Every structure is written in C-alpha cells, then in structure tokens.
C-alpha cells in the first residue's frame, strides 16, 4: 500500500458516462493485483472530503488503468480531469481475487455488470497469462452501458454480452445469461463484480450449484485501508457472522463466506 500524490493521467477515453483513465505511477502499479483498488482524491479542497474507491482495471509496467462510471459528484470531478492532470491515489488496497489453482487445465467465468466490469479486465488478462481458460459475461441496461466490448475482444478475451433491454446480445440480466450458460457447461469457478443485488443472485447461484465463486463487494468507504470501520459486511467466520471490513478483508469474498441479510 503506497501513496502517490501525483499519478499522471496519460490517456483518457470517454463513452458517455463511462471513462477510462490510463495513469503512470511506478509506486502504485508495481504491487498491483487483480481485484485490488485505489482510493482516489477527487479535489484538492474539502468538498467532497473523502477519497473514492476505484478498482484497478489493468496494471503493468509503470502504467495502470481505471474505468469508472459517473455516479455522483466525486466521479463527476474525476471525469472532468484531462490528460496531463495528476491524481492523488492510495493503493493498491484490499486483497483481490485468489487465483491459486487457476492454471492451464482450468476455466474461469467472469461476470461483470455495469461499472462492475472494471476489475475483470485485469483479472481476465492475468488468468489468461496463467494459461487458464477465460470467458467473460458483460451486462448492462442497454448497449451504451457495455462500452468495453471491443477492448475485451481485441485483447483476445472470449466475451458474451447481455443487455436488459435486448439492444445488444442476450436480452436480460447478465446473471440470467450466466444461469443459462451454466446449463450447457461448467467452469471451475466464477468471479463476479457488480451491484449488491447482482452479487447476491450470483452468490446464491454458486452455492446452489456447488461452484466456487469469488464476489467483489462494494461499500461506502471512509478510508480504504482498514481504520474507519465503515465498510463492514456480515462475513461468516468460525461459523459466526461477524462484521468484516470490505476494504481490508475484501473487497473479494467467497460466495460461501458472505451472509446476505434476509429480505
């Protein structure tokens, strides 16, 4: 975990509300692993006060990438940054995905909804480089919400898309598409990132099928490095459901560790 007060933006791409920034930072990229995240300052002033958690979309050499969607004021300020501007970042934070066992003879399915696709590019690249088979399921409300299609494809990553409104690919939720495909075949495990309801659906599906799954959770984060205790989620441990910190113990948890509140 390092603090780079001046990671330089060297490239920027925009698709509507979605933005991809390529940053240059030796400090941040050298220790980066898929599933980890940065805490990014969005202004020099005090409003908004807190940093924002943003996943590592990719990392390698001295470069790293973030991919985000404008959700409110902080991400809007981030979106207003230009090439050449600098970002104040802490990272890499969190534990990331556990990739042990995913070698040449294994297949992993990656499921991302909306901005939840962000960490899956780095993950897919890493799994591929370990020789594992990778298939990515990428969903959004409509076609404009799945802007990274070409990026995955040109990286040679097998991609299935879904849109809720059917404007591209499978018509329906990406978890429904996943369920559908699971009838035809089984991976050795899957990895998912997206909004809470999607994580819950994906997690319950994994448990039902007895399939190992790792889910990346979100929470409001005060610090990102384990001191404020704001980001807790009920996690099973020693058969008890304790509040665990998503920023430090996660953000990735096994589907079997997460306790969902009863509705």
């Amino acid at each position, binding site marked *: *975990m*390092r*603090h780079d007060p001046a990671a330089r933006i060297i490239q920027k791409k925009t698709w509507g509300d979605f933005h991809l920034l390529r940053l240059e930072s030796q400090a941040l990229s050298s220790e980066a692993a898929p599933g980890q995240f940065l805490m990014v*300052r969005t202004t020099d002033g*005090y*409003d*908004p*006060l*807190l*940093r924002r958690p943003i996943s590592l979309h990719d990392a390698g050499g001295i470069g790293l990438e973030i991919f985000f969607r404008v959700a409110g004021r902080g991400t809007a300020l981030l979106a207003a940054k230009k090439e050449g501007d600098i970002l104040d970042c*802490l990272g890499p934070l969190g534990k990331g995905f556990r990739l042990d066992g995913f070698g040449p003879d294994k297949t992993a399915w990656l499921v991302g909804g909306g901005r939840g696709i962000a960490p899956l590019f780095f993950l897919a690249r890493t799994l591929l480089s370990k020789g594992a088979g990778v298939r990515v399921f990428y969903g959004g409300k409509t076609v404009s919400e799945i802007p990274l299609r070409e990026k995955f494809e040109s990286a040679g990553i097998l991609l299935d898309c879904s849109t809720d409104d059917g404007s591209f690919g499978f018509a329906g939720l990406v978890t429904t598409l996943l369920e559908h495909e699971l009838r035809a075949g089984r991976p050795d495990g899957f990895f998912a990132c997206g909004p809470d309801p999607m994580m819950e659906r994906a997690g319950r599906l994994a448990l039902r099928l007895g399939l190992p799954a790792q889910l990346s959770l979100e*929470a*409001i984060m*005060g*610090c990102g*490095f*384990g*001191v*404020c*205790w*704001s*980001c*807790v*989620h009920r996690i099973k441990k020693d058969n008890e459901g*304790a*509040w665990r910190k998503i920023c430090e113990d996660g953000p990735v948890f096994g589907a079997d560790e997460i306790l969902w509140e009863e509705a």
Partner: protein
Amino acid sequence: MADLRADLGFLQLRNPVLTASGTFGYGMEFLSFLDLSAIGGIVVKGLYYGPREGNPPPRLVETASGLINAIGLPGVGVEHFAADVLPELRKHDATVIVNVCGDGDEEYFQVIEFLNRYDGIAAYELNISCPNVKLNGACPAMNPHMTRTIVATAKQRSRRPLVVKLSPNVTNIAEIARAAEDGGADGISLINTLLAMAVDLETRRPKLGNVFGGLSGPAIKPVALRMTYQVAQAVRIPIIGMGGICTGRDALEFMLVGARAVQVGTANFVDPAASVRIVHEIAEYCDARGIARVADIVGTLETNR
C-alpha cells in the same frame, strides 16, 4: 529547527500532534505511511471492557466538508488490547493514550483498573460522550454534575494521568470543562463529534443504520476552535484541541487559542500521513518566522475583550 516539544504537565510530548481516537485504529494500520515515533502520540480507538461489534451499516456518510460516522465503537476489548496490541505499540516507541469508554460509569472504571496493570500507556482519555443505554442514551458529558462525578472516581481509580474528552453538544462547554477540572482531571481534550443526521430522500430512511451519528472534519473546525478557546479561558489544566484539523496552520490555530497539543482525526482517512505532515508544517511555519519554540504560541491570541 524550532523546538516542537509540548509540555502537558503530566506528560511530555516530542511534538504537539497526536492522532484522534477512532481515526487511527490501534496505530499499526499506519505503519506503511509513517513512523509512530515521529508524532507526539496516538490515542487509540475507544475501548470498552469487552469486545464490541459496533452499529449496523451504513456507518458513514459524507457531508459538505465533513462526514458523519455511526461506527458505534467496535473494538477488541481490554484483554485482547493488553495482550496483543500494547506490546506491538511499545516496539514502535509510540506514546500511547487509551480512549476509555463505558456504558454506565462502572464500565469506565473497570477498563481503567484493568489497564492500570499494564505498562506502555501514557495516559487515559475518558470518552464521556459514550451513550448510557440505561439512561436512554444520555452521556456524562451532557451535564456538569455527571461529569464531575465520573471524573472524580475515574481519577481515584487511575494510576495514570487522566484527560477528559468533552462533547460539543452542550450549551455551556466552559461549565463542563470546569466540572472536569474540579473532578480532578489532569487535562481536557475537545471536541468530540457534533451530533448529526442524514437522510435518503428516495428510500425515506436515515442514511445511517444508527439514525444519528457524529459530524467531524473541516466543517466543524469553527465550532471546535471556539470551544477550545472558551475552555482555555475557563480552566487551568492543559488542553488538547481537535476538530477538523487538516494542516499545520489548522493545528497552530488551536494552539493560538490555548491548546498545548492537538489531535488529528478525520484527516487521517484522506491522507494517512496527515499527522506527520502536520508536524513538518508546524516546524516549517515556526522556522520561517523565527519562532524558536512552538509552545510560545500557545494561548497568545490577542483580543480587545
């Protein structure tokens, strides 16, 4: 370089910058950002006697230049703290102040008496803003009589200096400070968070699991500075000021109105090295102006009153 030492009477600090309880964990979390011996000291997370889970999430909400927390003081309890945390802190040569919590007066005393037996604690900070569940959430900090009573007994049971941490949610902060002084407090620290609330218009529910929470950060600095000044006018014991401190200049402002040391809270979340940066900024400020000892600034505010 300017002499940065801070003399609290009951405790000598390398420099006047401490970290505030609840915003710096038990200190270890910050080792990749700073050297614990480079700051004046650390006030650890509030400790109840036993381990506690804290409040249901959401526990934090951001507001204009501030944040509201309703973490609810989760913690490991005194036994685990004494056995596992304290020895680590001692290795890092940190000056450690323990923030003492209790649901009802008796628990405070239990925490103190338990910890009395362990070395490596420089002082206790009595967090008299803890809600007393039996008294419907009232806390000793709300009332001079309750403050005086709890402080007097805590002081008696303690074999260490006792700093009393005041709540800002009162009509007359000077009166509470005097009650703490009368009760035998060795020092006063202030302010704890301002009682606050945030709601979600769409769900029509509070944004915090606990409904209410405490406001901290730059937003509250003007209130904190006022109260620190009022208390400095009211008592003779040393004062540790806090509330929204983010820079060396902020820290020096609290010293100007009468604080001998300061605590850095919320700023640690935004900049994990904030406390040590603030030490450097204070030194730079003094050096640039030929101020030989930062202690010479304490309480030098001039008013025409």
